[in-house]
């Protein structure tokens, strides 16, 4: 084209110009239309229309803002949440009802204010987004999708490292992570690593046969029955056994069983029962039944369960602190069993089994009972004949023991313990989908699906996974997922660091004469002291304030007097006077609650008139008998008060009546509005209740749950 032609305005040029102007006009007209129909603006208008149908239209409309609403929290890692643009009723109490359509419903009442905390801190998702899909779902640009509400407790756990009453699922998940020894291979923040994860195997060859080890490794008593329940030795169990199933080949099983069966590095000398006892009892036809009787009287069932068949239904009865013992007679070698019962710490220094003061006679009777009755002749029929372990098998087993990560949980003298054998999980809960390996699996590519698939079948996302196989029910799977999602690693900024509520450090490691008795009887296996210990039995942190010294001594020497109908009861420790006095003195000196001040109350001031008033208050005004029993009448919820005067201290009763939760946090007795005079009168009455301590079959049916909360006492 020449320069002259360029300057000419032809009709064709005019036509082109006209058409393009029209098209531009159309495009310009579309843009305000597009803006008008933006998703968030539609929600804004819907909300206004919806407000018209509500009884409090005026307030809702007054609070309405037409623009994008944004919560900006510069101190909190620059959270920018525009969720409230559409979720407009979030702070309107009148919109709390579930019939209110989303996204307008009010947020359920939680301890945090939405305006101060924003939304994505707990719910994840993309705060700055103004479109439904972008805000809630994972896209390539934004990789954190919204957290499904069934795992929402994970968000509480990102700051609250201690357990909260409102988050049972998270607490359960953390508990499972600890109980199943996940911390053996993985680094998990806040999950304490106990001294002993799996048993020490240094001398396992003295305890078990090669055949039994083979069977255990092949199927560590974890099987799923046809309904998908976890069973132990074929009996349904509530808890998953700690030893998971490793996928081992026949050669590997032979190697490992060979290696373990020769572990006898520093075997204990077997304990020899006095031959006179053996001579006196071995021919006695009552031997086994006497042994069973002693087994029951010692309350072994508090920690160990046995399978019992009643009315055609077999289930495990007893506690789960120690292993289930139904077939233990076919498991352990008899000479090992005697030595073990005599001194458990001699074989396993960290075991929670107490050292009982067994007599030779008891030891003989009980071990004979176990060898005769707690057996299963079919237990090892599926195991092929293994023969003597060869040098080659032992070497293979030694190598496999390290390759499979066994030394993460089990120690053997001379082997270095393995640490951090599995991946570090301290920041698993904050991982983006792109950081995860999904392998050939067809699951949705997000963190929650990944965690659940990995937990259910480790091979599904990684064919070469070393993680063993666990069996979960859906609730436990969700609980563990919640606990893992809560582990988002250290806070990104120091400002966020301030939000972390650290885990309360608990420990109770006394010294001196008390410590020796405390360690020997392993009191902390069942009881709590200052937050440390088990939760099967009452918390003893303030036992010295609660119970009278003489009562404690009597109880320790014969623990069968309290709660006689419970299955899980304090075992017969065969405690001597000196040990009982040591424990009682220590409790009276140290395990004291500041609120129960013995000097503040003088039992001598109680008059018969006060006692009569107290009785009347107890029976008529406050009707305490709805929960407590006196003299055979009353409720089962609180402890039996028949012997209140011979058991509790005056100071404890007074302090308890004023504020039960101050003494035992979480106890179910409600705090009441007693006047000072009422407290004195009730105490005076309760102190008159006495009963000699002897076993009774008709007393209260106190609940193990209530007992565990310290309320059953």
């Amino acid at each position: 084209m020449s320069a002259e032609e360029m300057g000419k305005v032809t009709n064709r040029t005019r036509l082109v110009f006209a058409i393009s102007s029209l098209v531009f006009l159309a495009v310009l007209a579309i843009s305000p239309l597009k803006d008008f129909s933006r998703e968030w603006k539609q929600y804004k208008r819907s909300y206004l229309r919806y407000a018209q149908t509500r009884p409090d239209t005026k307030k809702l409309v007054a609070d309405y803002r037409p623009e994008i609403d944004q919560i900006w929290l510069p101190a909190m890692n620059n959270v920018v949440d525009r969720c409230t643009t559409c979720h407009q009723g979030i702070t309107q109490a009148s919109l709390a009802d579930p019939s209110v359509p989303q996204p307008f419903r009010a947020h359920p009442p939680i301890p945090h204010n939405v305006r101060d905390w924003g939304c994505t801190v707990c719910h994840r998702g993309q705060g700055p987004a103004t479109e439904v899909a972008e805000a809630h779902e994972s896209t390539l640009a934004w990789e954190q999708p919204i957290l499904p509400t069934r795992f929402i407790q994970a968000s509480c756990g990102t700051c609250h490292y201690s357990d909260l009453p409102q988050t049972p699922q998270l607490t359960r998940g953390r508990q499972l992570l600890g109980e199943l020894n996940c911390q053996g291979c993985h680094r998990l923040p806040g999950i304490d690593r106990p001294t002993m994860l799996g048993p020490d195997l240094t001398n396992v060859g003295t305890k078990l046969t090669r055949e039994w080890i083979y069977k255990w490794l092949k199927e560590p008593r974890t099987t799923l029955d046809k309904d998908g329940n976890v069973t132990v030795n074929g009996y349904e169990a509530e808890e998953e056994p700690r030893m998971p199933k490793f996928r081992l080949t026949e050669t590997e099983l032979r190697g490992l069983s060979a290696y373990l069966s020769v572990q006898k590095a520093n075997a204990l000398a077997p304990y020899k029962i006095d031959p006179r006892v053996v001579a006196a009892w071995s021919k006695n036809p009552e031997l086994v039944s006497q042994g069973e009787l002693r087994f029951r009287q010692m309350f072994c069932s508090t920690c160990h369960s046995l399978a019992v068949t009643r009315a055609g239904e077999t289930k495990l009865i007893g506690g789960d602190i120690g292993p289930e013992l139904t077939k233990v007679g076919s498991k352990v070698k008899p000479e090992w069993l005697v030595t073990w019962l005599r001194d458990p710490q001699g074989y396993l220094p960290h075991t929670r089994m107490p050292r009982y003061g067994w007599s030779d006679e008891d030891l003989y009777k009980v071990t004979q009972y176990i060898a005769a009755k707690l057996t299963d002749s079919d237990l090892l029929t599926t195991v092929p004949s293994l023969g003597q372990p060869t040098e080659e098998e032992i070497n293979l087993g030694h190598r496999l023991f390290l390759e499979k990560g066994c030394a993460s949980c089990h120690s053997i003298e001379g082997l270095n313990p393995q640490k951090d054998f599995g991946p570090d999980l301290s920041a698993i809960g904050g991982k983006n989908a792109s950081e995860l390996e999904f392998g050939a699996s067809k699951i949705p590519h997000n963190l929650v699906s990944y965690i659940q698939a990995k937990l259910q079948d480790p091979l599904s996302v990684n064919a070469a996974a070393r993680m063993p196989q666990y069996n979960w029910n859906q609730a436990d799977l969700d609980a563990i997922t919640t606990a893992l999602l809560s582990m988002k690693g250290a806070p990104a900024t120091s400002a966020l660091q301030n939000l972390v509520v650290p885990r309360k450090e608990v420990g109770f490691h006394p010294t001196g004469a008390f410590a020796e008795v405390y360690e020997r009887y392993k009191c902390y296996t069942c009881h709590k002291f200052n937050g440390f210990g088990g939760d099967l039995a009452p918390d003893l942190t303030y036992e010295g304030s609660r119970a009278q010294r003489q009562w404690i001594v009597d109880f320790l020497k014969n623990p069968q007097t309290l709660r006689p109908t419970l299955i899980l009861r304090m075992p017969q420790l065969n405690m001597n006077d000196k040990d009982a006095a040591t424990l009682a003195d220590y409790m009276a000196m140290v395990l004291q609650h500041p609120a129960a001040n013995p000097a503040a109350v003088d039992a001598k001031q109680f008059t018969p008139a006060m006692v009569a008033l107290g009785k009347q208050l107890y029976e008529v005004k406050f009707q305490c008998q709805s929960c407590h029993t006196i003299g055979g009448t009353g409720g089962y919820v609180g402890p039996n008060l028949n012997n209140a005067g011979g058991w509790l201290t005056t100071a404890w009763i007074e302090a308890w009546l004023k504020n039960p939760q101050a003494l035992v946090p979480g106890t179910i007795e409600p705090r009441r509005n007693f006047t000072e005079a009422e407290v004195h009168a009730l105490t005076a009455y309760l102190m008159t209740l006495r009963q000699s301590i002897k076993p009774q079959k008709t007393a209260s049916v106190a609940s193990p749950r209530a007992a565990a909360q310290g309320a059953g006492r």
Partner: protein
Amino acid sequence: MRLRFFASALILMTIAGLSGCRKHAEAPKADPLISAYDTEADWNDATHVLPLSYQQAQGKRVFYQQCVWCHADSTPAGPSNRSNLTPNPPLLNDGATLNAESDEFMQNIITLGGSALGKSAMMPPYGKMLSAEEIRSVIAFTRAIAQPPYKPPAQPASQYSAK
């Protein structure tokens, strides 16, 4: 040549402008799996599982700590104290009795105890132990499991649905 380029650029811009009007993906669907913490099996029919809201789930927690011992026929520990009491406390899912009581009455009797409202003194007051919010959540749980089902007092019906 130039004209064709110009025209195609125009068409492309128009398409680009219009494409923005298309709806994005739908909102996420409700999770099909609900865990035990936010469900409760119907007391009269265990196969019927009721989903609980956050508040109702908190109420369930408080109920199984404090109330279950007298207001249910079985407890986590086994036997219930209910049959032991005269008058018999109502079961918590007893809609025939409790649906007729207002939220305000329920809040008061739990806070102040039975004797304050002319009922049995066996019902202790929980006002110094549970927060008002916790008591509200227990009531919400009661309403959730009531049989026959609880219907809240009449409110203006909503014909509305979002969008």
